[in-house]
């Protein structure tokens, strides 16, 4: 095309009269917001080359440059014009200069005026591309193509699933597109759904027919309450559109020119979702965060096993909702059971929302025989449609465990409570002693001190004192007994003399009294036995201890008996008084010798 223009210029230049040439800058708007596209045209009458534009650094070039030149011949006067068009967007706020531009014509440099663009704060709502007041190209973007982000619900509960659609509405040909920025969705669980962007539908908005392509479909499950903003999606589209330039010649029109491809950046509007917390009231115990609509089944592989045989408890949760986020249920297995973490398998599908089934496989091994019970399990979820909690109970399970094979038990015995060695975390010295001690002067020793020697000496002295005191006491005591002993013989002799006198008088009664008293008195004094204890038994025992022979004791006892008998019944006793007297004397003599 350029060649064609140059050729035309060349042909016409011969007849061209020189004009005063002028370069101007025109903008579609002088007051814009940041990022808002606007059109700038640098136009010049006449022809020139090497147009240079200064101060475009503050602006993004969205489109362009599109150059156009025109030539008209009016009354033989040829007028030419050349223009360069950009679609720009301001990068920052403030009054930004645009231009000047220079161009060299026949060696002369021509400078243009400078435009001041007043850039205001960006308005988020305008980012959706609704600038209808921009002519030409921007108008095409605003009306003819835009991105929309919509959700099926704007008010959900935590854990409730919603669907987010990104749709492209377009009335112009879209050749290709690429997503440059996907919204980050903090605090949400996101599951993308496969879509087919090439399958388009027709939709009418404000009386205009649009083709609609679903670029993206996402299931979003908010994980926290509050307002969640889904950031805009940004995408670049390559569109084919009618050239803003008028077809300049017949060739263009014939050859189907006038279309050009352009890159358009589009952003969707941010979407705000109001996330409500789950109601606290009537919240069941053991609620694990399931929101949706579920059914629940729990089954036991066997209820009669031998010890050390594994049992499987299978819990299947089926339904629609945030199934992926359901934690394994806490099952209260009997303490004696060996339990393992459940194996979780999920089978998800995304037709008409997130759904599917999730299976928890609990493996337990009873280690001892007996009857066990697994308490009924409650699976609870929140139904966002009914706005209430639903509790699904399972039956109780009774397990009968028989005695296991002892060899088996040995083979698979597992001791979960290994005694561990005390773990030493740190190494430090023992802490200081905080109790206040008893201070004593250095070189103050107990051994060799006066108190020590006193302590040694006093028991020795005490012992010696004790020994002598005892000795003296003993001596005194032994004297008393000796005196009594000596007295005994004397007394006995006295009584015997009286008895002898009675014998001669043949006073039988008095004789026996004297004899028995002589014997009793002698034994009592001799053996140091008090009168109260002076029984025959006591006497014989004491005499035995003193080493007196049994014959003598028997003799003594029989003599005493005879005397007592005679005293109370004098006539009944026969026998010679002289013999008894002699016997008694002999007895006392024998006792005197035998008592030691």
């Amino acid at each position: 095309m350029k060649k064609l223009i140059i050729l035309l210029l060349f042909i016409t230049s011969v007849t061209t009269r020189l004009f005063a040439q002028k370069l101007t800058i025109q903008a579609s708007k002088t007051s814009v917001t940041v990022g808002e596209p606007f059109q700038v045209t640098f136009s010049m009458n006449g022809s020139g080359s090497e147009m240079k534009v200064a101060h475009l650094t503050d602006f993004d070039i969205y489109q362009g440059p599109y150059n156009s030149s025109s030539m008209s011949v009016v009354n033989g006067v040829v007028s030419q014009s050349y223009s360069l068009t950009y679609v720009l967007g301001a990068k920052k706020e403030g009054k930004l200069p645009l231009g000047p531009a220079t161009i060299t014509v026949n060696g002369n440099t021509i400078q243009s005026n400078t435009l001041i663009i007043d850039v205001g704060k960006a308005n988020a709502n305008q980012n959706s591309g609704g600038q209808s007041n921009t002519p030409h190209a921007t108008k095409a973007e605003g009306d003819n193509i835009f991105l929309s982000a919509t959700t099926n619900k704007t008010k959900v509960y935590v854990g409730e699933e919603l669907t987010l659609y990104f749709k492209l509405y377009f009335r112009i040909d879209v050749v290709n597109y690429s997503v440059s920025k996907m919204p980050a969705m903090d605090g949400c669980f996101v599951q993308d759904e496969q879509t087919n962007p090439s399958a388009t539908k027709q939709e009418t908005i404000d009386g205009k027919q649009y083709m609609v392509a679903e670029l993206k479909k996402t299931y979003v499950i908010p994980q926290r309450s509050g307002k969640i903003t889904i950031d805009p999606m940004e995408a670049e589209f390559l569109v084919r559109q009618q050239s803003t330039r008028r077809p300049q010649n017949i060739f263009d029109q014939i050859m189907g020119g006038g279309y050009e491809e352009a890159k358009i950046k589009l952003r969707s509007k941010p979407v705000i979702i109001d996330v409500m917390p789950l109601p606290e009231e009537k919240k069941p115990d053991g609620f694990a965060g399931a929101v949706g609509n579920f059914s629940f089944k729990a089954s036991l592989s066997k209820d009669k096993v031998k010890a050390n045989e594994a049992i499987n408890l299978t819990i299947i949760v089926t339904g629609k909702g945030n199934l992926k986020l359901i934690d394994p249920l806490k099952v209260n297995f009997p303490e004696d059971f060996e339990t393992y973490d459940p194996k979780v398998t999920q089978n998800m599908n995304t037709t008409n929302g997130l759904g599917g089934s999730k299976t928890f496989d609990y493996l337990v091994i009873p280690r001892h025989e007996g009857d066990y019970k697994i308490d009924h399990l409650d699976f609870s979820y929140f139904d966002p449609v009914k706005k209430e909690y639903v509790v699904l109970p399972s039956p109780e399970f009774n397990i009968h465990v028989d005695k296991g094979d002892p060899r088996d038990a040995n083979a698979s015995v597992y001791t979960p409570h290994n005694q561990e060695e005390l773990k030493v975390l740190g190494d430090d010295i023992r802490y200081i002693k905080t109790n206040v001690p008893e201070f004593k002067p250095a070189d103050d020793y107990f051994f060799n001190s006066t108190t020590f020697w006193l302590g040694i000496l006093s028991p020795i002295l005490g012992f010696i004192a004790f020994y002598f005191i005892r000795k003296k006491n003993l001596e005194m005591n032994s004297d008393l007994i000796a005196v009594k002993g000596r007295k005994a013989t004397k007394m006995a002799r006295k009584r015997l003399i009286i008895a002898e006198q009675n014998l001669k008088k043949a006073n039988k009664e008095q004789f026996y009294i004297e004899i028995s008293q002589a014997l009793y008195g002698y034994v009592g004094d001799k053996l140091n036995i008090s009168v109260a204890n002076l029984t025959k038994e006591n006497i014989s025992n004491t005499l035995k201890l003193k080493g007196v022979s049994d014959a003598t004791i028997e003799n003594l006892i029989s003599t005493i008996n005879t005397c007592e008998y005679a005293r109370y019944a004098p006539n009944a006793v026969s026998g010679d008084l002289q013999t008894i007297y002699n016997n008694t004397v002999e007895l006392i003599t024998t006792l005197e010798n035998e008592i030691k």
Partner: protein
Amino acid sequence: MKSSKLYILLVCILLSIQVSASDYPTTFANANTAYLKKDYAKAIELYQSIIADNQQAPQLYFNLGNAYFQTGDFAHAILNYERARKLSPDDEDILINLKSANQKIEDKIEVAPQLFLVTLHKKIIALMNEKSWSLLCIFCLILGAIFIGLFISTQNYLLKKAGFYLGGDFLVLFIATFFVAKSSYNASRSHDEGIVTVASVTVLSSPSDASTKLFILHKGNKVVIRDEHEGWMEIKIANGNVGWIKNIQIEKI
């Protein structure tokens, strides 16, 4: 048995003898607080001020040793632990901290094997301190006297027999504990052990700078002092090596 009551009274008096405390408990408590606040320099200063007044207690030396340990002065820590151990040989805390401190010093000396009887004797002496041994000795004597008294005075054959044997046993025990107490007393009075308190010492073969260099000792090493001669000491280290060093390089335990 009137006299036995007298003995009990006597023992009670002996046990109740306490050194009247002045302000040392306060200083000690302040030092402990400083230690707790990790102000070890101040704690050391306070503990030392008590020692400077010629006062001693195993706890005092132990705490001072701990404070030195915390400042990284292991030689003085060992010195004070050893002093504490001398006063209270059966305290487990002291032994453990002493062991920790000994692991921190540079020298590791293989202890030369000792005769079984020597170690046994040392172990027996280390069971209690000098005072406890002395008290045990007196106690044995008192019991011995009581049983012999029983032997003499009783008429009962069994009691007499028991009195004779028990009395004899206690008298033998008395003699044994007396000698142990004496050894313990001698050991705690003697200052024949020392700790190297300078970073590095060259041990010489005779008390003269010009003599042959034998080996090098480092800070914290425990030595036995065998002889002293004009500012020099003949020392013996745990593995049996003997040599001479200057007495300023060692602090006696």
